[in-house]
């Protein structure tokens, strides 16, 4: 199964946006990903499920270049992420190359990771102004629109610590969107929230999934949410995709015994 490359729906014409090619990642002697192949087509919403420790976060962190693969290559929108093609030879990429490719990727973290020293508005405008080169006015106008989108239009001047967890996470979503990424990585974005705040965040994400063409790669334990937004669900176990398919199939008639076990444990 590990060598099978196309786990997304080939019937949709979206080009390949993310591609893992024989990616191996180890932490010490612990091989977390072992020659992993998988790809995500442009515009798709792909959800990774699987038991804790199976390597889901590792995949997102590799894409965000927070960690580097030990072997194999990752391509984003046709460009190598951590390598450069120099006259036909693959060499480790410089920081500049990696940053350019990475600009296409946005990420929302489990712990929000807003900048506590900045007000909400500046959290959102900081990168568009300093990385994309938007004017301050332009960036602020967009930031306000995005805050309206996540239902926090009145919180521009608040500091993150003055907001609830759910509100902070919605600001973090707006902050990621402000960079106009082609793909959003969402790593258990509701896991750190009090139960009553989860729905608000998921609603915002559903809204984004249904009204934009941003590609989403999502790790979640919220199975109803996964069912609503996913085109494809990948079931991970021990760093391998053991089963994949549309949510209707994975959630109702999983083929693999491990998938059944996992689903019965979380559903």
């Amino acid at each position: 199964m590990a060598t099978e490359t196309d786990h997304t729906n080939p019937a949709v014409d979206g080009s390949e946006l993310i591609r893992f090619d024989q990616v191996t990642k180890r932490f010490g002697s612990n091989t977390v990903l072992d020659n992993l192949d998988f790809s995500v087509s442009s515009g798709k919403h792909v959800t990774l499920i699987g038991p804790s420790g199976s390597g889901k976060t590792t995949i997102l962190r590799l894409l965000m270049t927070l960690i580097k693969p030990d072997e194999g290559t990752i391509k984003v929108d046709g460009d190598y992420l951590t390598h450069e093609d120099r006259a036909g030879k693959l060499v480790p990429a410089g920081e500049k190359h990696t940053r350019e490719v990475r600009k296409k990727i946005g990420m929302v973290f489990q712990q929000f990771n807003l900048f506590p020293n900045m007000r909400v508005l500046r959290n959102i405008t900081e990168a568009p102004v300093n990385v994309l080169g938007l004017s301050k006015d332009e960036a602020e106008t967009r930031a306000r629109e995005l805050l309206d989108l996540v239902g926090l239009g009145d919180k521009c001047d608040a500091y993150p610590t003055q907001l609830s967890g759910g509100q902070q996470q919605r600001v973090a979503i707006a902050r990621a969107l402000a960079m106009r990424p082609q793909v959003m990585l969402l790593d258990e974005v509701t896991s750190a929230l009090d139960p009553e705040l989860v729905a608000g965040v998921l609603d915002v994400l559903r809204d984004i999934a249904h009204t934009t063409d941003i590609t989403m790669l999502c790790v979640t334990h919220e199975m109803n949410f996964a069912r609503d937004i996913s085109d494809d669900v990948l079931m991970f176990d021990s760093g391998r995709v053991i089963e994949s398919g549309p949510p209707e199939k994975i959630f109702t008639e999983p083929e693999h015994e491990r998938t059944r076990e996992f689903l019965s444990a979380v559903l």
Partner: protein
Amino acid sequence: MSWNWDVAKDFLPELGKGLLITLEATALGSVLAFALGLVWAMAFRSPTRFVRWPVAAVVEFIRNTPLLVQLFFFYYVLPTWDIKFSALTTGVIALGLHYSTYTAEVYRAGIDGVPKGQWEAATALSLSRGRTWIAVILPQAIRRVVPALGNYVIAMLKDSPMLALIGVVDMLQKARAEGASSFQYIEPYTMVGIAFIVIAYPASLLMRALERRLGH
């Protein structure tokens, strides 16, 4: 021997002049120590070990050599390299450099205290390294360490009389000169001691207040 108010009164203007020099040396030394310490602390975090290692070695070396030795080194050796500064400037450089190795540790603790998620969020937003430092990491790190930095200002104040050994005429030198000319020692030295307490004690109270306000 008894306290002579006339001697005390006569010494007061001289004490004032010495005090200004003491404060000047402390203030300039602090500015240098704060700035250089920040440079060291950021270098400790450099992705290149050819920056990290030499800086760590030099900082360690300076911290473990007495300030007095550094003071004499700068005073006697720099001129042989045709680098000539006034005694006060030389003193400020030695004081600032020496204490920068302590402030570097303070900054380091502050920087280490910024959660890893902040660096990761900055990476996820593609912020440059410089921007990550300036906009994200340092504002959070420095806020935590202001009180600890303040304590080093007080330490520098108390070390500043050492500058007299290379000819900086600070409060203590003024007291010595007064003693030498009038043979009255109690008044000038007592007054210098009091002057130090009068500055240092409120300063440390201020630091503690800052600590309470900024610390979480």
